[in-house]
Every structure is written in C-alpha cells, then in structure tokens.
C-alpha cells in the first residue's frame, strides 16, 4: 500500500509535468496544426536560465518568476522572428524549422553550460510529506503536483474568462473571422508561443530536480508529453492534461509492478502508447475526430 501510494503520487508528479508540456504542445497545435518538437528543448533552456539565476544567489521563487517571464518573452520573439516568416510555407518546411530550433537550443545549452549533469534545486524541503496514516510521499512530488495544478488552473481561467483569452481561442478557431472582428491574429499566435514557453519553463523547473539538469533532459519528457497529448486528444487542451497525468501514472506503476518493464523499458511504453493511439483511436480519448473534405 505504502509503495503503491508513493508510486501513484510520484506518477502524478511527473504526470503533471507531462500534462503541462502536453498542454503547451496542444496550444501550438491548435493554432498551427503542427507539433513543436522544440518545445522540450525550449523548456530545458529555460531551466538552465533558472539554474544560472539560482547559482548567482537569487532566491528560488524570484528566479522562478523571472525565468517564466523571460521564457514568455522568448517564446513571443521566436514566433515573430523564426516562425512567422515560414507561416505559410509547406508543413515540411515548418517541421524542419522546429527540428532546427531543437538542435540550436540543445547545442547552445551544451556550449554555454557544458554537457555535465548538474543537480537542480527543488523549492520544497527534502523530507517526507505525511499524506495520511503512516503513508508519506516525497515533498517534491506533492509540491510539483500543486504547482502544476496551479499553472493549469491559471491557464484555464485565462482562456475561459478573459477577453484576451477568448480572442486567442477565436484566433486559433477561425483566423479570418477573427481578423474581421479586429483581432490581431499574428500577435495572438505569438502570445500563444509565449504562453507555451512559459508553461514549458515551469515543467522544466519541476522535472529537473527529479531528472537532474542536462541539455538532453527533456527529450524523454517531451516523448511522454506527446504520448499524453495524443492519448487525451491532440486538439483537446483538457484531454491533453488528463492524458499527461495518465501517462505519468501508467509509466510509474508499470515500471514498479510489471517486472520486465522496470526502468529500462518505460520509454518503450510511451512509444507503444503513441502507436496504439494513432492506430486505434487517432482522435484520442477526448479529442474530436477531424473530418477533412477532399
């Protein structure tokens, strides 16, 4: 029981990180119909910025909020400078740009901070957190879940209840009608990139204490997030969040209880999940099937 709860909570903690990144993927996907392969590397780069600030002696939460702000601005700039010129180009061109971004951020991080693995501080104390009775979980797991839920709630409230959030939804749903009511669609896309980058930054900072900090740390995380986004439905933000949590829990429980999976085959599970979803239920659990008229 003790082990089960711990694995469950641990799964929810990493699942929340996958959920955040999955949400970032879905946000870009809804506006562009493409998966931003560089989302993970952008998050990794943000985490290095946080690391630099903390190493320079800044308090954790100050570094946290500065990193989120800088990442938001960075996301906006990337959209304006790199993505916008190829907006109308073929899908292949844009995918190559995404892969280029991935490689650039990966190499840049390696060049600036070296490929040596670094520990990353958790904002939560390093002691067990008593859940109930004699069952306790790691404080970082509990904290990461709370932070993730706070981020997801804020994002939800923003899109659901603010005029700007509504305008961003409108711009993704129907760009032409949006222009006709005066929404500056180009800027909405840029804001979407900014938000996705900011959400990714939080995910990076929450996962780094678990995985340690290195330029390749997000490669696996992005795959799990992608599996979560697909499982929930690539065009459904809520679905992606649920999918992300499910993948996290599934990964942890399978790694613990299915003997031959262990730590080594966990990633294979994510890949199998991706393939299974694509074959058997391309629209995911909560997504709407896309019907294309030909």
């Amino acid at each position, binding site marked *: 029981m003790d082990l089960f709860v711990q694995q469950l909570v641990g799964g929810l903690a990493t699942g929340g990180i996958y959920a955040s990144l999955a949400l970032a993927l879905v946000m870009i996907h809804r506006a562009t119909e493409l998966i931003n392969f560089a989302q993970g590397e952008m998050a990794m780069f943000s985490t290095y910025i946080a690391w630099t600030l903390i190493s320079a002696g800044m308090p954790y939460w100050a570094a946290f909020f500065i990193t989120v702000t800088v990442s938001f601005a960075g996301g906006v700039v990337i959209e304006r400078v790199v993505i916008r010129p190829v907006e109308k180009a073929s899908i292949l061109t844009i995918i190559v740009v995404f892969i280029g971004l991935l490689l650039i951020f990966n190499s840049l991080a390696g060049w600036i901070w070296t490929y040596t693995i670094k520990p990353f501080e958790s904002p939560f104390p390093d002691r067990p957190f008593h859940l109930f009775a004699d069952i306790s979980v790691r404080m970082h797991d509990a904290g990461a879940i709370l932070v993730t839920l706070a981020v997801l709630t804020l994002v939800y409230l923003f899109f659901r209840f603010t*005029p700007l959030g*509504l*305008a961003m*939804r*409108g711009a993704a*749903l*129907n760009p*032409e*009608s*949006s*222009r*006709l*009511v*005066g*929404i*500056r*669609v180009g800027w909405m896309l840029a804001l979407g990139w900014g938000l996705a980058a900011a959400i990714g930054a939080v995910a990076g900072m929450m996962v780094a204490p678990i995985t340690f900090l290195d330029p390749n740390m997000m490669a696996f995380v992005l795959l799990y997030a992608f599996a979560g986004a697909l499982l929930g439905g690539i065009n459904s933000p809520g679905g992606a969040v649920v999918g992300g949590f499910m993948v996290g829990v599934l990964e942890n429980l399978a790694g613990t209880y299915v003997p031959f999976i262990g730590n080594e085959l966990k990633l294979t599970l994510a890949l199998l999940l991706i393939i299974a979803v694509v074959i058997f239920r391309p629209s995911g659990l909560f997504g709407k099937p896309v019907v294309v008229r030909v």
Partner: protein
Amino acid sequence: MAALLEVKNFEAAYGPTRVLFGIDFAVEDGGISTILGANGAGKTTTLRAVSGMIGTSGSVSFDGERIDRVATEEIVRMGIAHVPEGRGTFTSLTVEDNLTLGAYTRKDRDQVARDFERVYGYFPVLHERRLQQAGTLSGGEQQMLAIARGLMLKPRLMLLDEPSFGLAPMVVQALFEIMRQVNRNEGVSMLLVEQDAALALELADQAYLLETGRVVISGAAADIKGDDSVRRAYLGY
C-alpha cells in the same frame, strides 16, 4: 448626403486571374448600396477587397480617409463591420462569446453591456440560445448571429455578403426587415451584396450591377427596379 465609402477604379486579382476590372461605387452616409450580380461576378471579391483581405489597386476612401493600404484588423477599428460569406461563425464558441468577440475592439465596456441588450432586442432567439454552441444553431440563426456580431462593433458601415444565402424566404424577409430597422434607427450605412436582386433593390437606395468584374449598370435602386428592360436583361425576374 456625402459618401461614407467611396471606391474608385477598383481592381483585384487572384494570382494571374483578374476578377475586378476597375469598378467605381459609393455608399452614402446613412444609406444602403447594393451590388448585384450572378455567381462569379466578383461581388464577394469586392467586399473582401474593401476589408483589405486581398490586394487591390485603385482607391478606397472611408469618411474621407484612404483605407486601401490599411490592414483588415485596423479597418475594423475604424467602424466597418464585415459579415462574411458563409457567416464566419466561431462554431465551437457560445453565442455569447461570438458576440463578445464582435465587440473585441471596443473599450467602452458599459456601453457594450447595453449593446448586448440592444442586439438581443433585434434577435430574441439569440438571447434564448446565448449559452449554446454557435455551431448548433440553424442556418437562419447563424446568419442572425453573424449580423448581430457585426452590430456589436457599433459600426458606421456594415458590409453584408449574401445574407439571404441558403435561407427560407420567411427567414430572409425577417432578416431584411431588421436590417432596414438598423439602418433607419441607428443610421448604420450598409453595402449589401446579393444574388436576390428583387429583395436587395427593395432595401437599397443605390444599386450597382456587376457582370464579370465590371459595373454594367448603376443608379438609384428605385429606377433600376422600375426599368423593365434592365430587369429582364440582367436581373432575370
């Protein structure tokens, strides 16, 4: 009355295919002009070009200001509401959210709240369905929503692209009656594109007949309506 919208020597093309060959037309301040013509005459293109959605040559002046190089989003801010072909509904948003987006550029929040009431007054059915996803509305209700969304801008000029398209005659009658009221009571000028010439001539003051990208006949709507030879030759009724 001075012209609110004045278009001169308007030309437009989709790639190498020219669609408009130097047309002239105007909408009087407080008036209704209609552009009539068959499918493919260039009616929708004309409206899209006025809204800056496709590149053009020639001049477009709105209230004395040139707008032919202005971006669509900015043209909206000047008070031109375009109700597009196919209605342009945000189908997965609620009716209310669609209307909120219509007022997106406005800063006068109190007045916007009152405008919801005003627009629901014209279209009570939208009030009943305000929390429903817009995509679940009937064709007629979606056209009402499209016009209502335009009205939420508090526009000086509305560009209406075939509001009668695909709707039952009764619904069309009701819609045109509301458009007449909006024009009379609020002084909103309109540029109406229609295939249903009889209906459009009933509503408009000024009419332009478009044939393959050229204005072949223009004049007061009443005169064109009364001219049997024009009616038989071009309007087919």
